[in-house]
């Protein structure tokens, strides 16, 4: 498949159109939605960029935490983790749990909402 323009290039072009052409011509609720749309495209671009590396390190941490097999998928391991938290086998006191969840959530918020105040608080205590 061709990739000229690439997916990020297409998203960047649409985002630029919203920011520079569409949004300035909109008012009220439509202008608000244009800002939301632009932010959503920015999230999509960060997600495309960061997801492979983030998921690789999330999976490595989960494998160590759960002593899971090399073939277990990220989804399977997260379900397993949820079940073990629910059953009380793993708690907030379990070594490495909070550190894993914090690293995973920091990576997620850096993609979703990098300016969120709670992210700054988390980074200060890391």
């Amino acid at each position, binding site marked *: 498949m061709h990739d000229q323009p690439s997916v990020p290039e297409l998203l960047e072009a649409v985002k630029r159109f919203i920011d520079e052409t569409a949004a300035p011509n909109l008012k009220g609720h439509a202008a608000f939605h244009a800002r*939301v749309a632009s932010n959503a495209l920015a999230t999509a671009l960060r997600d495309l960029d960061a997801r492979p590396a983030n998921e690789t390190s999330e999976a490595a941490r989960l494998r160590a935490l759960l002593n899971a097999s090399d073939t277990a998928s990220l989804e399977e391991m997260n379900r397993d*983790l949820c079940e073990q938290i*629910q059953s009380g086998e793993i708690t907030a*006191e379990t070594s490495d749990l*909070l550190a894993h969840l914090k690293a995973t959530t920091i990576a997620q918020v850096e993609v979703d909402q990098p300016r969120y105040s709670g*992210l700054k608080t988390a980074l200060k*205590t890391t």
Partner: protein
Amino acid sequence: MGTQSDFETGLSVLFTSIFDSDAKLEAHTRLSGGASQETWALSGSGHDAILRRAPGGTSAARSSAAIGLPAEAALIDAASKAGVPVPKVLHVLNDADGLGDGFIMSRVYGETIARPILRNDEFSNARAALSAQCGQALAAIHAIPTTGLPDTLQVSGGLEQIAQYETIYRGFDVPRPVFELALQWLKANAPDPLDPVLVHGDFRLGNLMVDESGLVSVLDWELAHFGDPREDLAWVCVNSWRFGQSHNRVGGFGQLEDMLNAYNAASGRAFTAKDVDWWEMLGTLKWGIMCMIMYEAFRSGADPSVERAAIGRRVSETEIDLINLLEAAHA
């Protein structure tokens, strides 16, 4: 629910009957705001009022937790008698009015949007006064006699809310380990429940009318219920409701000590920051699951707007807040 001109005619008749026989409705303007309810500004002959009405006049509560407009009017009335700053209810719509479900109240002036309240110079005195004013208002709300309040109000304490939100979360079948841990932590560390009081249920910037000197009016009573007074004190502290000003635990504008001192002085209670911590964790989890509910409206096709799509990527904000709270609790 009738035609547009039925609506205008009905409103005009009502406006005259609420004020005086010479009062003529000159303008009615739909204000932006809640999607769950219509808000109209009415004016004429020197009088101003606000109409809160179900969309199109048909009554369909936003969620099972919403109490409905007639009940909201009754609560605002009870709050007014208890000294809570609220608008004055002028009329509750009835069948003869032909305008559907809703009520008319006095118009109060001020700012409800968090950003200017938290950042603009003209609100600097308001910010300094607001924490204590919130403490006083919440003490007054929690002291409202519960007898005679609408029977549509639910009883919902901390453990009931955990169960309710856990059911919703499990229904989505999306594994979120942080939520799972918060659920288990909340259950393991739940404080003893207190005798139920009237709880506002959504006491935070956005639902508070503020002017240069501070709190003018407590709005949006549709999530009111009987529950634990600590719920309201903590909800305004949830980091999402600090709107970026994390260092000010109360709503982004003030310190918890100031709110609690005012609250304790007015109520005779002796709440400390520790009483707020558990409820702030619960409030943060609830807001996260509410964001999941709003995203679900997009995913299911019920509301295909970009806003509902994007809110799904705000769930992680509450996850990082929960991590910060869990870390602090285990420090």
